[in-house]
């Protein structure tokens, strides 16, 4: 089977669903989300068929790779998109409230279809090694996300989030194009894998021009991954965007950004002159991201915003892994961390969506007495908070353990000690939610309804957290 086959399948699926939406029953659009999820599950199954890597001398090989990183993250993105699509039916009432209703169900169908195009863009992004391709796939994903973030057009918070996302996204696009231009100008190639050869042939005088280009790329990728000091858009955008999209942004979009960062750095770190400089920069970035994400999360009272800061904090732990890429175990550790992050972050967004649907808000105080109103949701949130905080026997703990281990092997002792301190800070702010759920009295005693789809999602994600937390070996084996 050809490479890029899966991406093409996803795009086709999206186009077919758009046609279905246009010509079929208008009253109930939930089936579109289910159809999309089923279609993606089919694509996920296809990804396990044996695939032909591009022939080494073909023109395709200059753009597309099929390695462990791309295979793992393509599946990761498919799963993340399936979960997001399954969250959408539960979000229907909010969509109806904030969308202009000239016709029944207007605009609701597309909300379940657009994520497919984001998914295709991100899948492409993790399988390519060419700057131009990275740029094009990034734009496919980002422009679709602009639409999705502003989707609640009569909700000012969503519009504000969308505007910020658009302006800062455009800015980071500028950085990435500028960086590509400088790197291409100096080395004459846009292929990441060809960079080391091109750079080693360079005269020393052009090193600073190259470093400038690399710096621009790092700035742009920091935007995408949410690393300090380019994380400032995250809390506002996360808070304002529709909840399923927030969840998608924090998991899928971040993962694709990290994969590009990994490919870029792996190639550059083969050059000793650059390796030392990059190592220092990345260590600093990781440290600052850890400090900012964790300590700024402490005073938050809005849970969605708190999860925004928490996603910055987790980017910090992942950057610890990125700063230790020289270790063989670094990529398995980062991949495992992402799998754990997918399960625990999405689980908390699923619970948040159910709770805010019933209580009408995203504040932590809306979780008050949840253990009385719905012990099931409270238990699910307890599990995901425990995993996010890094309590043993959850996937989050093993993820942190693996990351700390590679960081120690690379001699980042300071980062690891800082990591332990920020984990303690994490305990504090994740426990705030547990405290609200179990200690506080609920404002009303009515139980919160949980739909069958939501229940299924919670069971699957919760099982993922526990199973990977107790028996991580199979997942790690898939990463090696």
């Amino acid at each position, binding site marked *: 089977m050809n490479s890029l086959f899966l991406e093409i399948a996803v795009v086709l699926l999206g186009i077919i669903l758009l046609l279905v939406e246009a010509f079929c029953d208008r009253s109930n659009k939930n089936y579109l989300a289910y159809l999309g999820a089923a279609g993606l599950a089919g694509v996920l199954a296809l990804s396990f068929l044996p695939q032909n890597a591009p022939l080494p001398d073909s023109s395709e090989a200059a753009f597309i790779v099929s390695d462990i990183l791309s295979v793992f993250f393509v599946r990761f993105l498919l799963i993340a998109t399936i979960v997001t699509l399954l969250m959408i039916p539960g979000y229907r009432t909010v969509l109806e409230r904030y969308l202009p209703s000239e016709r029944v169900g207007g605009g609701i169908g597309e909300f379940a279809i657009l994520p497919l195009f984001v998914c295709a863009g991100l899948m492409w992004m993790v399988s390519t090694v060419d700057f131009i391709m990275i740029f094009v796939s990034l734009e496919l994903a980002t422009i679709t996300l602009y639409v999705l973030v502003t989707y609640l057009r009569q909700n000012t918070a969503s519009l504000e989030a969308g505007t910020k996302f658009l302006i800062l996204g455009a800015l980071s696009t500028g950085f990435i194009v500028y960086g590509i231009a400088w790197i291409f100008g100096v080395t004459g190639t846009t292929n990441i894998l060809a960079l080391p050869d091109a750079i080693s042939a360079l005269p020393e005088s052009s090193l600073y021009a190259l470093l400038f280009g690399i710096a621009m790329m790092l700035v742009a990728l920091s935007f995408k991954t949410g690393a300090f000091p380019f994380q400032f858009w995250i809390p506002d955008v996360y808070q304002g965007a529709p909840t399923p999209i927030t969840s998608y942004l924090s998991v899928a979009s971040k993962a694709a950004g990290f994969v590009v960062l990994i490919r870029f750095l792996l190639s550059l770190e083969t050059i000793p002159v650059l390796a030392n400089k990059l190592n220092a920069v990345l260590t600093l970035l990781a440290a600052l991201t850890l400090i900012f994400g964790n300590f700024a999360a402490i005073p938050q009272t809005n849970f969605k915003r708190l999860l925004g800061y928490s996603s910055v904090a987790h980017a910090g732990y992942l950057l610890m892994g990125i700063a230790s890429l020289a270790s063989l*175990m670094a990529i398995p550790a980062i991949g495992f961390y992402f799998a754990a992050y997918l399960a625990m972050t999405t689980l908390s967004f699923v619970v948040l969506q159910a709770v805010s649907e019933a209580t009408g808000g995203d504040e932590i105080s809306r979780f008050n007495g949840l*253990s*009385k109103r719905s*012990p099931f949701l409270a*238990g699910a949130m*307890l599990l995901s908070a*425990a995993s996010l905080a890094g*309590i*043993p*026997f959850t996937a989050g*703990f*093993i993820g942190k*353990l*693996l990351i*700390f*281990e590679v960081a*120690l092997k690379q001699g980042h002792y300071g980062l*690891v*000690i800082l990591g*332990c*301190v920020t*984990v*303690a800070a994490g*305990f*504090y702010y994740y*426990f705030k939610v*547990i*405290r609200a759920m*179990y*200690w506080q009295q609920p404002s009303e005693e009515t139980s919160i309804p949980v739909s069958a789809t939501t229940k299924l999602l919670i069971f699957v994600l919760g099982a993922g957290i526990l199973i990977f937390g*107790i*028996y*991580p*070996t199979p997942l*790690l084996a898939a990463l090696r």
Partner: protein
Amino acid sequence: MSLLLILLIVLPLAASVIIMLGAAPRIVALGTAILNLLISVVLFARYDLTTGGWQFVSEWKILPQLGINMTLGADGLTLTMLLLATLVTLSALWIAPKIDKREGVYHICLLFISAGVIGAFASLDVLFLYSFHELALIPTFIMIGVWGSGDRQAAAWKATIYLGLGSFILLIGLLALYLSIPAASRTLDLRQLDQMAAAGTFHPSSLIYLILLVGFGSLVSLFPFHSWAPPAYACAPAPTAMMHAGVLKKFGLYGLIRIALPLFPDAMHEFNGLLLLLVIGNILYIGYVTVAQKRLDWTIGYSSVMHMGYIFLGLASLNIIGVNGAMILMFAHGLSVAAAFALCGELRRRTGTLDYSELGGIAKAMPILGLLFGFAAMASVGLPGFANFAGEILIFFGATSYGPAMILPVIVGVWGVVISAIYMLRAYRSTFWGPMNARWDSLTDITATARWSVILLLVPLMVVGFYPQFLVKMVTTAIPR
């Protein structure tokens, strides 16, 4: 491969799942606790003293490339602690009053604490030793906050932050320990660590010992990291206080015995002066603070902090007799403090207050509670005939043979016995003797259930008190040669 140890951990967890699915919480939880107690008695009886060492070992591979396996095993000390844990669990679940709100969650929390401590004591892998202890942290936090009394939320927050920070200092120490092992033979298995230390191929920096001492110390309420303990115990519901003060807190001491004693013999000598200074703080300063308390639950809370000083004194004597005494006292103190908190909780449920100024003469209305509390108080003071006496006398013998550095701590320790007699007798007098306030006329004595669940704790105390030799033989197997 013996599966009895893993069964001890799995049973409470399985019982939690069954309760979640809707079974009657109290019956399932009590049944599990009885089964667990039987298993631990069987293990205790089947331990082969002539061969000694680790027995009932079982192993599951978790992360082989990091040398992390879930290895369970037991020697005499482990089995003693498991006996303590299962005894206190049964007693705590048995004496738990009828819960109106969220009965299921209450029992699940207690079962999780139990599974956590049992796992921590039975683990041979340092990472799992740590992990299982963490498992018990969240349920403790939830229980104090939901079912506690008084200023419960502040107390729970304070305890959680102290214990959370203590755990992370501990984690840093353990990471540092792991790194100081030569890369080729990195392992977290206690047996291999002991072997390496004994063979002299492994010399961790003594700084790591200090980190571990602070980490484990704050979990055991070593002076000056103790201030979380009294408010948390005073506010916690009785079964939680029993589990935490009786069993979970002993984890810190257990960790020091397992990790610090065999791996850091030189560092322990080097920093013994510092440890002894803290021990004096624990015994003398906390002792006087205890005398000044005006409420029964705070008195017991502080007294439990103070008695940790004796156990540390035993460890600091660095010889077989002293460490044996420390281990016996861990077991004895666990039972006596659990009994005291159980009775405290029963009293509070009936009177609604534990203030000395409002109590007095309660023994007239509740003679059996008074009698049982007398036993628990005398055990805690260290009256001969109770296991606490056996532990303390061994600790004093061990300490005096350490050398001249111990003269002052031993004098302080003996004086501490007088202090604890003062506050315990005072507490006993102000609560149970004297003129009775008329409003307590209608109090009913404790039920047969509560009576037997406390007797369950007091009987082993007296058995060991009269015949300590068999327990001494058991715990000696854990002392590195």
